[in-house]
């Protein structure tokens, strides 16, 4: 019944992470107070979830290991993947939110910088795309901020 996984390497990483997560949930659930006001208590569900997750993650792990041994290859894709851009976008997002959380930059400025930089990077620093990105950055960081904060009264970050 066990069929080898089609994405063995990713599966192994995810399965091991999930096992660690299940362990953490189990560990933390020991601090939950014994049941009061109800018969079951708050620890039962997290523990059940931890057990089920570790069981299923183990199955995924075994199948992935079988896939590795059989040398299963992921299907080929007709374009060049850009992991650098994927990581870059996440990093820019972290910097964007971090700058506002630590109150280094205000919302309008942080937004303009983020939108322009990530747009430019995603567009391969093509000049035309950069020009448009700059326009979008100003529209969002300036115009949209005004619209949301002063017209719709939506609270914005710092």
């Amino acid at each position, binding site marked *: *019944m066990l069929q080898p996984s089609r*994405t063995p390497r*990713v*599966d192994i*990483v*995810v399965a091991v*992470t*999930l096992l660690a*997560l299940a362990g953490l*949930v189990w560990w*933390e*659930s020991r*601090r*939950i107070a014994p*049941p*009061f*006001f*109800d*018969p*079951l208590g*708050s*620890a039962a*569900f*997290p523990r059940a*979830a*931890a057990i*089920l*997750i570790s069981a*299923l993650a183990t199955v*995924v792990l075994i199948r992935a290991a079988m896939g590795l041994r059989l040398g299963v290859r992921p299907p080929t*894709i007709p374009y060049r*993947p*850009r*992991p650098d*851009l*994927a990581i870059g*976008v*996440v990093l820019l*997002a*972290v910097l*964007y*939110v971090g700058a506002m*959380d630590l109150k280094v930059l205000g919302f309008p400025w942080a*937004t303009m910088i*983020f939108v*322009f930089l*990530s*747009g430019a990077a*995603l567009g391969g620093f093509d000049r035309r*795309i950069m020009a448009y*990105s700059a326009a*979008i*950055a100003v529209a*969002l960081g300036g115009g*949209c901020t005004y619209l949301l904060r002063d017209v*719709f*009264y*939506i*609270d914005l*970050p710092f």
Partner: protein
Amino acid sequence: MTLDLLDALVFVLTPVPLFWLLLGVTAGIFVGAIPGLSGGMLIVLVMPLTFYMDSTFALVLMIGIYVGSVSGGLISATLLRMPGTPSSIMTTFDGYPMARDGKPGRALGLGIGSSLVGGLIAGIFLVVLSPPLSRWATTFGPWEYFALVVMALVLIAAISQGSMIKGLLAGILGVAVAMPGLNESDGQLRLTLGFHALDNGFDLLPVLLGVFVMSQIIKDALEIEKRAIPLTLGSAPVWMRLADLRRHGMNMLRSSVIGTWIGILPGVGASISSMVAYGVARSVSKHPEEFGTGSEEGIVASETANNANVGGALIPLVTMGIPGSPMDAFLLGALILHNIQPGPLLFQTNKALVWAMIAAYLIGNVAMFLIMTLSVRWVGRLINVHRAYLLPAIFFFCVIGAFALSNRMFDVWVVIGFGVVGFALERANIPLGPFVIGFVLSRILEGQLRSALMSSGGSLDELFTRPIALTFLVVSLAMLAYPLIDPWRRRLRNHAQVKQRRSP
């Protein structure tokens, strides 16, 4: 009932609701047509913008987006060979070949017409089935709800694409992610790791923004070079003739019923509906060999079923507060954000709202048909817009939306965190649909079981003595056991055939 429906139809046709509906449908068609954007994303993104809107208008807008986005996907499926939304995957197989062979107008026209027919037939089921179902559901107590949610989780895990193990894993992971924070059943904190920021756990909206929107941003960045040149529509007329209704009538009816039924099943989305309907259409077709090469029947089956699914999936949402598809999980979240308690009493306590939702769905389908027919030429040109313009803006709206929920930066960090989580899960082929459904249903699952146990003083007996609850449980067990039994049964059958051949 008829009066309520008429009132609601008239209400939705008044200028303000109609404006929101048309806006929703149009925006839905666009995000549906652009690969890498989806209706779910848009619904989650507009949710915070509707905080201060009238709740009925907000729901009308979101239903418009829902209907539009499921339909818009067929444009890119046909012209770009990329499904604009997952629900139009099956349309690519026949829509694109047909368009490539010089009949793009015909392919689009059939798709749009089928979408309307599927949507309306499901609408009839929605109108007729919902009131009695909701009356039936008022008899549900905690045991029934617990068993129903168990069934929903098993069902979505079993039917979701890929392996059942990973579907289950996704569902339970979703349940687990909803565990930290203040627990309703005994009013205690748990799994907060000592951080007060986690006292409320992970909120629905930031998690949805992360898993559905942020993860898609990461994925789109990774696949930024995945581009295709769209076929041009030229001046080909986009029309479906009335004669087509006769020619494809059976197929439409069958696919609508399949789509509606799969929609009603809790948690199963439109892509499954269209796959099943497509498969059935091929197996009963007189020309099964044409499927995949530009078969009209294929387009009709796929597009009828995915729109019918929308109507079907609204049924458990409005009658029981259980989402019929991942998109309905967002609508459920929107109801809760607007302080409306979903559940069987909705038909009594918020009658006007429920009927307005149903009316918005019906009128939304007609609006979708008109807007699609008139605008398909422009949308066809826009679908290839460079992602570099879209992705940063989308994240900007994520930040605003997550922060507006409760004025905490923590929620914005949750978006980024769950974006990475969602991306990793998808890479490992662990489906996000069951994850979100598990997350949304987790509170009901645990809360109802614990309420039931409090009510019975700790005894489990009632789970087995109450017929409805027991039925739900038996169905779930059967679905769990099926993949274990099936290969074994097949082997037995093969064995028998081999034996037969040996002894003629």
